[in-house]
């Protein structure tokens, strides 16, 4: 399983990646939406899951998810929000939303739910 972790907060990106690696995933980290989009566009078929923060400069998490979904509507996405506000975007369904601050167990649940839904 190949996971992309997208967060503009380097410490958090590292922690998320570390956790996913511990769970046996192969993890690639992107530090903003555009970097993630470039990574995805390079090889759209290799990704099994994207975990992305919503609030990022440039391309935000929701726009990233929309772009990615337009290309691959089967790709599971976990969207993380720091202020508990969720976008009402039909194209994102069945994305899974996760509110900060979450613990590892909740992240794991979200990852499983998103893979089951997609």
């Amino acid at each position, binding site marked *: 399983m190949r996971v992309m972790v997208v967060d503009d907060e380097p410490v958090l990106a590292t922690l998320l990646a570390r*956790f996913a690696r511990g769970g046996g995933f192969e993890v690639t980290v992107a530090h903003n939406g555009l970097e993630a989009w470039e990574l995805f566009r390079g090889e759209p078929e290799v990704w099994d899951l994207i975990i992305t923060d919503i609030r990022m400069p440039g391309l935000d998490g929701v726009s990233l998810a929309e772009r990615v979904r337009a290309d691959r509507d089967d790709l599971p996405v976990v969207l993380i929000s720091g*202020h508990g506000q969720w976008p009402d975007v039909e194209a994102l369904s069945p994305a899974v939303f996760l509110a900060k601050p979450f613990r590892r167990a909740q992240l794991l649940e979200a990852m499983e739910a998103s893979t089951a839904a997609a």
Partner: protein
Amino acid sequence: MSEAFRPTDLHELLTVMRELTEGELDARVSTHTPTGSSDPLHPMRVMLNALAQQLQDAVLRCAQHEATVRKLEQAQRQLLCTAKLASLGELAAGVAHELNQPLQIVGLSVDEVRDALERADHATATEYLQTIEDQVTRGAGVVDRLLALSRHDGESTRTQTSLDKVITGTVSIWGAPLAALGIDLSTDLAIGLGDVVGDSQELLQVITNLVANARDALEGQPTRRICLRTTAELSHACIEVIDTGSGIAPDDLPRVFDPFFTTKGPGKGPGKDPGKGPGEWPGRGTGLGLSVSHGIVRRHGGTIEVFSELNHGTRVRITLPFAEAP
């Protein structure tokens, strides 16, 4: 046919005049002249009634006007209240985001520490404890800046303050870090500018913060100049921070003083520290700098305005009242 008027006629006129004076605005005199007789006071009666009518109309219009003003004031209060609530909502979302970032990192780091301790891996545990400590400091910083927004007058120390010293202080803090980024910081100071009454530390905070904003706006610009200018007006000293940076979009301009509003993208903590490595552009803003500055300037009895043109630059203009001559 008698041209003389009777005392009772005069009395009637006087009575109506008194009634009008006392606010009985519908009082009128009779203008009827019986057939075959003549009334020398008739034109005066007609004139008095016309005046009374005009007075009554004017008072009515005035009352209507007052009612409209009251309605307008009420609508204005409601609008202000709505704007405040919207601002409060934005503030709450901003605070939530700024505090959730460190909390999130602390939460996940605690799990890492627990795992490391189970493996007796003390080095990793210590590493994550340091991360936790850093994030607690970061969270405390958010709270500090938030509290600065609500600070009251009594807490600052006001003395006769020289703006030249505030500017010199700013230059000594920012000169070298800006030069390392290829930014030219210049001053254009009014000669013999009078003192203002203020808290020099707070004023220094305002100006250094404005310079930090100017620096951020200069990233990637071909011409990188910041000018600090002081001028004297009639009763006010004026300080301007002028940059040749990227400018602020007209849509964003009305919101620049809102707490947590930022065009730099929030989330990474303050980039206001000139003590970073040489030649290093900062992280992004918290959206608190201008709202805190606005609060400080307002508490000093001054004004702060932002003028900006996209791709040409920004000019922030602060006025502060001169101290009374000793």
